[in-house]
């Protein structure tokens, strides 16, 4: 997949106040291309997570169209969305969506089992780089939110992708760890030739964004 295009997309929640919308994404044309780095900035309540959820097919409550290359995603069936989530679009959820019953490593492994994309050594190396190697076998429920964010990042990288959406990835991290996280993510994205879309409400990863969208 080379491009993701938003054409005059209006979330249903904003339908009543279309005229007030002053956005680079809503109710206009916005295109994201593979291999490029984008920042989506917004205040709370502007629909940042909504934007991400339209791309992974989690929500469909909008007018307008979201197209992958030239395919209108409104016509996608379950099978196509599953394929997208497994092989084309990676999503680092703002709310993480980890499983508290599983250990940190198992949370990554449950995704890696599906894709078979990374070796255990690579995963352990990332844990090590992010300073949570000692938490490999700790239950997620017992870890801090910042530690959980790092596990969620690793999970989002154990799959092939054309685009990665990082929804407020560093909200609970210090600058050092943010920098390590950014480096790991960008290295992996470059290796895959993927597009990176980072969202933020203020504090954002320190990266050379090629284009910034205001929501």
């Amino acid at each position, binding site marked *: 997949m080379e491009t993701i295009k938003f054409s005059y997309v209006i979330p249903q929640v904003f339908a009543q106040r279309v005229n007030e919308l002053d956005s680079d994404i809503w109710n206009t044309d916005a295109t994201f291309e593979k291999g490029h780095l984008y920042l989506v900035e917004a205040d709370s309540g502007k629909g940042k997570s909504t934007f991400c959820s339209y791309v992974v097919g989690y929500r469909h409550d909008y007018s307008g169209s979201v197209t992958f290359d030239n395919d209108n995603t409104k016509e996608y069936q379950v099978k196509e969305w599953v394929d997208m*989530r497994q092989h084309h679009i990676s999503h680092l959820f703002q709310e993480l969506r980890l499983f508290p019953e599983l250990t940190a490593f198992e949370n990554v492994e449950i995704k890696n089992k599906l894709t078979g994309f990374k070796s255990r050594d690579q995963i352990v190396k990332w844990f090590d780089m992010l300073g949570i190697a000692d938490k490999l076998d700790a239950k997620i429920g017992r870890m801090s939110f910042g530690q959980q964010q790092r596990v969620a990042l690793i999970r989002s990288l154990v799959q092939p992708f054309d685009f990665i959406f990082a929804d407020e990835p560093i909200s609970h991290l210090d600058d050092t760890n943010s920098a390590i996280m950014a480096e790991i993510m960008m290295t992996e994205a470059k290796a895959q030739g993927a597009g990176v879309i980072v969202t933020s409400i203020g504090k954002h990863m320190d990266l050379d964004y090629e284009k910034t969208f205001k929501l």
Partner: protein
Amino acid sequence: MNLVWKLLRQHISVPQFAGFFFANLFGMLIVLLGFQFYHDVVPIFTAEDSFMKSDFMIVNKKIGTASSISGRSNTFSNTEIDEMGEQAFSDKIGKFTSTEYKVDANMSVNGVPVLDNGEISFESVPDNFVEVKQLSDWKYTPGSKVVPIILPRIYLTMYNFGFAQSHSLPKISDGLIGMIDFQVFVHGNKKQAQFKGKVIGFSSRLSSILVPQAFMDWSNNEYAPGQQTEPTRLIMSLKNPGDQNFTKYLDKKGYEIENDKLNAEKTTYFLKMMVTMVMVVGLIISVLSFYILMLSIYLLVQKNSSKLENLLLIGYSPGHVARPYQLLTISLNIAVLIMAWIILFFVRNYYMGIIETLFPDMEDGSMLSTFVVGISLLVLVSICNLIAIRNKIASIWKRKE
């Protein structure tokens, strides 16, 4: 799969599944038992008599107050017999002949007396109405001291249940008739003689002891010469068993047929009705247990819905996350079926023991058709389970729409 299972088995309620297991087991067992029992018991009522085919009709005159008062005889005259034999529907016709002299008998089984000098009666029908495997068994040469006899089956039942049990004697089946010692004493015409009765089998269509026609003719002539009463019953076969003209003829003449086939049909009908009712109850229990299972699964899916949603969002397909629950229900269903079969096997062994003492020569039958019914039920229920679980997961997939 292991990690997914580790996640999704959270909130599984053992008591709920145990409840389903036993309810379903109970329902399944009732359905299968009803079915099996019906198949085991029906042959008793529909079994062909080995000595007299069921399409041989036994005809007698209607006995009622009118005929008793008018003095109308309930015996058939030769003219009446000839007339009936000449009808287009008749194939062959014969009469029941009975003894005109007094017969006493001693019967013992394995040396233990069962009947001591009791008065009995013989009857006979033409030999071509008696079907014996070896024709020589049913031959009597006048003057011989050995007479082949066929006993009414009721004797066997009475002996097996009334006598053998209380005297701790062995039960007799058709294969053991050699154990019966039957002595016959005949008086009449100022003569008496002793014969040995050679039991060659049992028939459920007889009301008295059957002897070969040759013996009947010879002995009547020997011990009651000149006395001849007209027969009260005729035996006949039809060219076409369903011939309407035959029934019309019977009505016109005031005859009726002794139809034990009809009785068997009635019994079978009631048995079928009862078994159907029992099976319906079993099915209802099964349906309810199915409902319990579906409720437990729904509850489980509901409790784990956020986990399921997360699994779907990280790329698991609905089919993939449904699989652990589908496997769980199918294994439960299979366990129930196997358990039901095992219990059925023992229950059947128990009641077959009783049936076999009642009807020793009954064939053993098989559980094959019940296996098929069980498997069909399993497949049907499992398919419903699979579809229901799939739909439930699909609703989680779509919940945000």
